[in-house]
């Protein structure tokens, strides 16, 4: 089989050096297989001997930290290789070195048996290395097609490019509209653009940094099929993820990094999640548990909330009904771009709501109140974008506490209480184990996971009545994720109403009492997670929950008191 494959490759090479590239199907394989005609090229001589990529003794030191310390990594042709490690373990630095963004201080890189110096991403792409970044490099003012054209080395006519984008996106189940402007896209949709952009370049090594965090379970399956097919075609894949289940399902080999060093290699199929996590963290992980608990009075109530969108590519919210009670966690699943942004803006108050009474917080109509006024009533909010929204990049952590800390007395008589803010920041840093220089460190000097811990910590320490959290652990390492999830559960146990909007289904199943799905701007009923099948949620994510009922009734009967009584209780509560 392998030999046959190699022969084909060779045949195709000949073909490539001739003229008739379009005559490929004549060689006897389907058009489906023919999509990576350049990417899957293997050197028939070296591939059997030399690995696709070999890193030897790579070290990289930044001013104060050693990001990589004598790291060895070998990726064979057609292998799906997992790179596991906590945030700050040095995965990103290592990948930046492979992709030519930075240069190592010591060590060698061998590409298909030849020592190379990768000095720029452009050079890496020419070698055949593609990368899907966790933080996207997308120009917001450009369309999808324009963004992709920027990264391509060849110049294509716009129509051809659009057609190719559509073809690749259809083939891999990653729907994107080539003519759409990217600024209005959600995180999930942007990631799709990144993946499609990479696939268009027909890479021979594809680096994927947490690619599945924003996909539906079905789409993950499609992506895995895609990745396996790519691997089958000889493309090597370096797969960075924190999701141990996924790695065990997909990857052939895993290299585990801890504190910049390789702490082990493993064949993930032969390990349990616990043993992989132990290698990664260096210690045993606690599982969070959700003790059943009767919900209290209604704290957040959305009644027939409909809202047109100002953004031409936004999603219109239609007839949203939801009740979140004290002492329960409700999760909203769904692929981003289905109204998540709009729903968050409506609840947080960043976009005011025209319908009186559609939105009640602790029994009070808040439709016309701005975010600061809603905060006074007890709403706390952790947004999806940490830097630039949840925190101001250039400001210190202490100053970032003032952002939402008015209710904690950090602002008094129109003056900022600098000392109180610093004390508040210090306490948050200590309580949530935020790694930073001090409370005076600028927010953008923290890693994503640490900043998220800080923002979640800040909001929790501001004593919420209702806690709204978007993507609580997106791109956050296992240890920190665990801490954040446990903190949310603790909030619930303390009687706070918690609403989590996330694309990570595993997480939602782990921490939520009830689960609803947002699809195409409509919200399904919130049903208890116990006994709910992942597949059902997957179907709902495509918008097919008519049968399950849009209204709250079925769920309410089980989990929440009837609305009128709830409202009364809420009034009594305030």
């Amino acid at each position, binding site marked *: 089989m392998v030999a046959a494959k190699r022969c084909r490759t060779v045949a195709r090479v000949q073909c490539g050096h001739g003229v008739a590239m379009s005559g490929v199907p004549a060689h006897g394989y389907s058009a489906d297989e023919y999509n990576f005609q350049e990417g899957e090229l293997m050197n028939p001589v070296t591939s059997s001997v030399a690995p696709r990529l070999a890193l030897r003794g790579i070290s990289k030191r930044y001013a104060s930290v050693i990001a990589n310390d004598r790291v060895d990594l070998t990726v064979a042709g057609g292998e799906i290789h997992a790179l596991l490690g906590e945030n700050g373990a040095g995965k990103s630095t290592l990948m930046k070195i492979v992709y030519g963004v930075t240069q190592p201080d010591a060590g060698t890189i061998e590409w298909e048996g030849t020592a190379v110096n990768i000095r720029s991403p452009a050079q890496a792409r*020419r070698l055949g290395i593609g990368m899907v970044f966790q933080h996207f490099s997308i120009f917001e003012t450009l369309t999808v097609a324009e963004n992709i054209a920027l990264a391509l080395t060849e110049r294509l006519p716009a129509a051809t490019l659009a057609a190719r984008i559509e073809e690749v996106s259809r083939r891999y189940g990653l729907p994107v509209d080539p003519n759409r402007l990217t600024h209005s896209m959600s995180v999930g949709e942007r990631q799709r653009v990144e993946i499609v952009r990479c696939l268009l370049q027909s890479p021979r090594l594809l680096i994927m940094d947490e690619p599945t965090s924003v996909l539906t379970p079905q789409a993950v399956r499609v992506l895995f099929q895609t990745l396996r097919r790519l691997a089958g075609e000889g493309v090597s894949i370096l797969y960075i993820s924190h999701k141990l289940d996924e790695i065990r399902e997909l990857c052939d080999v895993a290299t585990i990094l801890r504190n910049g060093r390789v702490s082990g290699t493993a064949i993930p199929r032969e390990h349990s999640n616990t043993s992989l996590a132990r290698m990664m963290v260096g210690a045993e992980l606690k599982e969070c548990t959700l003790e059943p608990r009767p919900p209290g009075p209604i704290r957040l109530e959305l009644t027939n909330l409909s809202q047109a969108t100002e953004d031409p590519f936004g999603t219109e919210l239609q007839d949203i009904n939801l009740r979140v009670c004290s002492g329960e966690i409700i999760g909203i699943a769904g692929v981003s771009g289905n109204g998540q942004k709009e729903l968050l803006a409506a609840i947080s108050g960043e976009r005011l709501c025209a319908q009186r009474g559609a939105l009640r917080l602790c029994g009070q109509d808040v439709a016309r109140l701005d975010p600061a006024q809603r*905060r006074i009533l007890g709403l706390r909010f952790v947004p999806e974008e940490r830097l630039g*929204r949840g925190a101001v990049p250039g400001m210190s952590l202490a100053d970032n506490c003032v952002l939402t800390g008015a209710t904690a007395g950090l602002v008094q008589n129109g003056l900022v209480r600098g000392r109180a803010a610093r004390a508040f920041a210090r306490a948050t840093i200590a309580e949530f184990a935020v790694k930073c220089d001090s409370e005076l460190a600028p927010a953008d000097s923290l890693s994503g996971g640490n900043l998220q811990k800080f923002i979640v910590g800040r909001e929790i320490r501001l004593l919420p009545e209702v806690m709204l959290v978007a993507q609580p652990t997106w791109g956050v390492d296992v240890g920190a994720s665990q801490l954040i999830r446990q903190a949310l559960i603790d909030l619930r146990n303390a009687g706070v109403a918690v609403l989590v909007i996330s694309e990570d289904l595993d997480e939602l199943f782990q921490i939520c009492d009830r689960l609803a799905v947002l699809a195409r701007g409509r919200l399904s009923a919130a049903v208890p997670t116990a006994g709910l099948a992942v597949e059902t949620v997957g179907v709902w994510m495509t918008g097919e929950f008519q049968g399950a009922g849009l209204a709250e009734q079925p769920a309410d009967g089980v989990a929440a008191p009837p609305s009128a009584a709830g409202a009364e209780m809420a009034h009594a509560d305030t």
Partner: protein
Amino acid sequence: MPTLKRYRWPLRLERRQKPSTAMRIWCSPLAALAMLATGLLVFGALGKDPLAAFRVFFVEPLSSVYGVGELLLKATPLMLCALGLAISYRANVWNIGAEGQLTLGAITGGGVGLLYGNALGHWAQAAVLVCGVLGGMAWAAIPAVLRTRFRTSEIFVSLMLVYIAQLLLSYLVHGPWRDPAGQNFPQSQPLADNVLLPALLDGTRVNVGFILALLLAALSWWFGNTTAAGYRMRVGGLAPAAAAYAGISEQRNIWLALMISGGMAGLAGVCEVAGPIGMLQPIVSPGYGFAAIIVAFLGRLHPLGVVLASLLMSALYLGGESAQMELQLPASVSGLFQGALLFYLLAAELFIGYRLRRVHRAPVTPGAPPAVTPRAAAGGQSA
């Protein structure tokens, strides 16, 4: 396969890991030095002895008490305008029309002094100053209304209003407010003595406006660093999405920014009219409001920086005048220095976030020339 030799520029701009603190501090002094060097070159090219020209430009104007007084006098409107602009720019509100707000401050303050000066008695100076501030605010309110109600760009509106304000002043001094005894010159009657701001020191013309400017510099530092309003404006400028998240009103920030910068520009205008000029005339400012934009950036939008930068800019004005008189250089030499200063400043600011890196000639790697090698090898093998 012979490789084509392509010339590669040996230096490349590379983003720094962290913005450089050293460059942040040194970029303004560096820009000033580069401007001086350029100035010397220009003097040389014009056939003047550079060192003598340098002395005429920078040393002679400041070698007397009167000269130092003039330095502070001219620094006053620059400082006032630039302090307001710095606050505004930090909030991401781009008021370009300080010159117009200054002119309107001169009209309202000067007008009140002209029409009611005698009636106001002891309160005349204070009343005139307050009216100047209000005039500047009123003029800045126009871009504020248009921006908050109709999302108009405050940059264009405030800039256009400069010319309207200047024409309004011109109309007033050519028409209704012209001095009947002024031999048809387009100027108003001189302001009454009780309106005029007295000189701080005998033999100079510097007045209480300079003290006010220094006080306002301290006040604006306090405003930006300790008040909640100043904090909200900084957040609005640094991260508009974070401001929206925290419920900070963008409209309030815009109004505040324009009222502060407009009011301070208005104060600058009335200090000129009730100070060194002493009457209304068609032109009350040699472009202080525009130069203040450069001053604000040269001072890195920090009050202390603005105080120092306004002194430097004032020295340029004085040097320009002195160069006109003694070296017969054109008046535009001041403009040239201002332009060079802004140019170098913007260039130097780039190096806060970026640095130049030498790129060595890449050793031969399969990647450097487009990756033909492996494919060619494969082709060769199969053929």
